[in-house]
C-alpha cells in the first residue's frame, strides 16, 4: 500500500481483501447474517411482540445517553466445568437463570447466530416491557446479544467464560447507551441499579447451577459522558411507552374478542328446532 508496483504473484495470489476461504471459515458461522430488519419466528401465545418485528438492531453508536461498560463476573471456585461447558449450559438454559417474572422467548434449540428472541420484562411499577434481542455472535466460549430500536439501551451484552488460574470465570459484559432521553432518566433514577441486580442474580444462579456459591464482582465504567442529542428522536420507538399503551388497550381488545361476530348473532335457520 505504499504505491510500489505490484509483483505478478501479488496479482494472482488471493488476498485478504478477497476473503480467502480460510478467513471466512474461521468465524463466518459465528456471526448473524445481515438483514434489513429483525424478524421474529414462531411466537408463543402468551408472548407480546409489538416492538421487535421490523425494527433494526442498534449499537451504542445509535444510542442517546452516556455510554457505559458494565462487567459482571463470577469465579466458579471449586467447580469442574470448563469455559466451553459453562457457555454450552448458559446457551441451553439462558432464561432459567433470570430473575422471576421475566420471560425470554427464544428458539427451543438454544442460542444461535441470527436468532431473534422476544423479551417480556417486568419493570419498576410492574410495567411489562415487551422487547427483544438479536443473537449477534456466538461461539463455544461466548455469545453476544444486540438490542433493537426501542429497547431500554442501544448496544450489546457479551456472555463469556474463560480460564483464570485454573478456575473458570463466567462473565456478562454490557456495552450500552440509553436509547432515548426517557430511558436515560429512568436509568439514572434506579434503572442502572435494577440492571445490575438483574445480571448479578443471573450470574449467581448460573454459578449455583454448577454447584458453586459464587460472589459476583461488578465493575462499571462510564466510557463516554456525552449524550448524543442527535439521537433523542429515538423516543418514537420507545418500547416502554408502546408496551404501556398496549397494556391499557387490553380491556378493549378483550371486549372486542368476546363480542359475538355476525355469524354468531345470526343463528342458522334450524338452530332452535327441537331435535327428535
Amino acid at each position, binding site marked *: 500500500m505504499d504505491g510500489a508496483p505490484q509483483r505478478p504473484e501479488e496479482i494472482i495470489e488471493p488476498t485478504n481483501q478477497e*476473503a480467502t476461504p480460510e*478467513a471466512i471459515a*474461521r*468465524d463466518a458461522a*459465528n456471526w*448473524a447474517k445481515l438483514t434489513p430488519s429483525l424478524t421474529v419466528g414462531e411466537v408463543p401465545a402468551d408472548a407480546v411482540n409489538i416492538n421487535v418485528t421490523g425494527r433494526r438492531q442498534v*449499537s451504542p*453508536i445509535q444510542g442517546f445517553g452516556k455510554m457505559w461498560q458494565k462487567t459482571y463476573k463470577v469465579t466458579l471456585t471449586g467447580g469442574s466445568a470448563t469455559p466451553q461447558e459453562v457457555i454450552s449450559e448458559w446457551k441451553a438454559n439462558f432464561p432459567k437463570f433470570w430473575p422471576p417474572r421475566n420471560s425470554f422467548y427464544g428458539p427451543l434449540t438454544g442460542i444461535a447466530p441470527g436468532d431473534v428472541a422476544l423479551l417480556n420484562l417486568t419493570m419498576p411499577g410492574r410495567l411489562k416491557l415487551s422487547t427483544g434481542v438479536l443473537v449477534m455472535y456466538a461461539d463455544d466460549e*461466548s455469545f453476544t446479544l444486540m438490542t433493537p430500536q426501542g429497547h431500554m439501551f442501544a448496544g450489546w451484552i457479551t456472555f463469556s467464560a474463560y480460564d483464570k488460574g485454573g478456575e473458570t470465570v463466567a462473565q456478562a459484559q454490557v456495552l450500552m447507551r440509553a436509547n432515548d432521553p426517557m430511558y436515560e432518566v429512568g436509568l439514572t433514577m434506579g434503572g442502572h441499579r435494577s440492571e445490575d441486580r438483574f445480571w448479578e442474580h443471573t450470574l449467581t444462579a448460573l454459578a449455583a447451577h454448577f454447584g458453586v456459591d459464587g460472589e459476583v464482582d461488578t465493575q462499571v465504567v462510564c466510557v*463516554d459522558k456525552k449524550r448524543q442529542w442527535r439521537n433523542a428522536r429515538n423516543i418514537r420507538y420507545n418500547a416502554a411507552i408502546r408496551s404501556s399503551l398496549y397494556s391499557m388497550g387490553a380491556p378493549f381488545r378483550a371486549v372486542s374478542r368476546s363480542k359475538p361476530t355476525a355469524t354468531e348473532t345470526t343463528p342458522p335457520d334450524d338452530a332452535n328446532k327441537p331435535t327428535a
Partner: protein
Amino acid sequence: MSQTATMDVRQAGRSASIVDVKGDVTANSEDVLMDAYNRASESGVRSIVLNFEGLDYMNSGGIGLLVTLLVRANRQRQQLFAYGLTDHYRQIFELTRLDEAVGIYDNERDALAAAGAR
C-alpha cells in the same frame, strides 16, 4: 493462524496516521489497540485510518473495542476511517452499524483521500 493482534503505526502526511491491524482482534487486544491509537495521535492528526488488510479474525469483543476507540477519537475531534476489510467483515461493520460512524474504503488511497491526507 495468529492468536494476537499486532498494530504498526505509520504517518500519512500531517493530518492522518495509519494503523496496520494484523492478526486476531478480540477483547484481549485492548492494550495493543489503545497503544497504537496513542502513538497514531501523538502528532496531533485529525484522522486515524485503520488498515484491516492483515486482519485474520475479529469477534464481538473486538467490535466492542472499535466502538470504544471511536468514542476516544471523537473526544479528540478525530475521524476514523477503515480500508482492507473483506466482504465478511464489511457485513459485520454493517450488522453492528459501525459503518455509520467509520468511513469504509476499498484501499489506502481512497481512505487517505477521504481523510484529507492526499
